[in-house]
């Protein structure tokens, strides 16, 4: 198992190069279509062209980057917090007696079905208007619920024969997690971490819609109010870029830790 965790020596260079190339092509095609579409549609208050959005950025680049930086902090902190709690919760669920595990899992899924946007304006009042605490909390909440199901599922659905093997080795709980459950769940964890990153982006923005005076969510609202749609899109683009960076990092980590699995699924 430990050997399987080693990165697969392969031709990473050429893959990386072609991967980057594909993204450039993707970005070029998307931006080109958007520019043409926006010009044809000719309602800049509904669909501004990328060139206009770029102009908007060049007007106040440091300010926009400042807003983006604040939101990035909220996203990253919220993501880390949510992911940490989700993993702790999944581990906790493993050691609890079955009826309690079942009950807590039900409680979590019930909580998950509460639309927390409804809470957002109240959370802001509790955690303070203008602070980033409430936004981090909401981003963490979004990330947590995007993860906890899948981590739990990944941890419990290990093969019974392998479980029995470890029992015959008289492995303790931590060994069980370290050598069987975690490696087995890792591919699922990485996939859902990506989902959680996107959820954290959305959570931070939802948080900023209530009681924020800085950050991309605030920029969206305040620019919408004065009819500056290009700036709204600029904020959305910034969010997307932050999201991509986060996803890129997670993908790199995924390659590092579960490259073997990616290879296997591709071959099958």
């Amino acid at each position, binding site marked *: 198992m430990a050997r399987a965790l080693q990165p697969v020596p392969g031709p990473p260079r050429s893959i990386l190069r072609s991967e980057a190339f594909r993204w450039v092509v993707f970005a070029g095609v998307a931006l080109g279509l958007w520019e043409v579409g926006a010009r044809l549609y000719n*309602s*800049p*208050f*509904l669909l501004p062209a990328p060139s206009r959005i770029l102009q908007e950025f060049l007007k*106040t680049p440091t*300010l926009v980057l*400042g*807003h983006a930086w604040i939101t990035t902090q909220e996203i990253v902190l919220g993501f880390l917090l949510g992911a940490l709690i989700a993993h702790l919760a999944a581990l906790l669920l493993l050691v609890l007696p079955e009826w309690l595990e079942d009950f807590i899992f039900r409680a979590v899924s019930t909580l998950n079905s509460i639309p927390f946007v409804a809470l*957002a*304006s109240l959370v*802001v009042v509790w955690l303070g*208007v*203008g602070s980033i605490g409430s936004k981090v909390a909401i981003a963490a909440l979004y990330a947590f619920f995007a993860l906890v199901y899948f981590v739990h599922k990944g941890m419990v659905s290990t093969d019974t024969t392998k479980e029995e093997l470890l029992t015959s080795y008289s492995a303790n709980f931590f060994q069980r997690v370290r050598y069987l459950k975690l490696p087995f769940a890792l591919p699922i964890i990485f996939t859902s971490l990506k989902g959680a990153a996107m959820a954290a982006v959305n959570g931070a923005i939802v948080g900023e*819609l*209530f*009681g*924020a*005076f800085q950050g991309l969510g*605030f*920029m969206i*609202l*305040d*620019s*919408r*109010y*004065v*009819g*500056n*749609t290009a700036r*709204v899109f600029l904020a959305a683009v910034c969010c997307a870029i932050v999201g991509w960076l986060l996803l890129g990092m997670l993908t790199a980590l995924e390659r590092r830790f579960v490259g073997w699995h990616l290879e296997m699924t591709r071959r099958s």
Partner: protein
Amino acid sequence: MKKIIGLLAAGILAVLALGSAQNNLTKATMIESWFIHAESIGDPVAVEKGFYKDAGLDVTVVPGGPGLSPIDRVMAESKAGRLVFGIDYPYNLLEARQKQKLPLVILAADFQGSAMHILSWQPISKPSDIKGTFATWIGYDKPIKAVIGKGWDKQIQVVNQQGDPATLGGWLAKQYPFASAMVYNEVMVAEKQAKDKYYLYSYKDFGVDWPENVLFTTEDVLKKYPNEVKRFVQARYKGFRYALDNPEEAGKILAKYNPNLDIPFELKGLEQIKKIMVTADTQQNGLGYVDTAKLQKMAQQLQAAGILESASLSGFVNPVPSGVK
């Protein structure tokens, strides 16, 4: 090492001295009804030009935003025994006072007339021409209801403009015929974006002529801080006067409080604001003049439209003259 300790001690002393100097000022909070834009310009200017400080006040200007009711926030601060002021529309305050029994009191009025107008794709000659979907911000739908009167719900469907792209996008895309528009914001957006001929009406054209953006506080604050309230009002309108006289400089101050703003756009808005802030009444009685007769008429019209149960203003209006002409 000793030097460092000496420096530190000097630093701490300096901070303490500064702290005690500021302690002579009474802390106050000014809660705006929206993010900081041109309509709030008097407050940042009064802070930055030291008008509040001269009045013995250390004022924190707090922006509003969606989901943040100035009434709630003023009530919370007031319950905690602090000196607090807010900005909202008089009808929302009167409604909260009558229905929720909140001890809200009007001190002054920024806008003598309505900044809110009606944008329409078709000409309106009488209130019964207003039929169909009418977009307005939640909480700002009472003037149109008063224009139509009882039975408004059979004539119009009010939709929340807060969800509108570009603040007017739905109207500009002709998804509904009518939208309410602030003269310092949406009206300017329409000028820029509308491709076809449209019509602009004032609520005054239909007999609804109410003050807007009124400064309010609570009865508790008035009782506890009578002198500070007076000094606050005077300093605040000094700030507005200064901003109206020196728009360029005020614009720079505004940009400090909300860097996201397009300052030329805001200053254009300020010109419109000037028209409803400076009137014959205020030239005589000072900026922020409260026309009680207008408020009384407002209460009667709201009662007639079935929005309020009583037209009584008892205890609601406590004008504090600013003396700033």
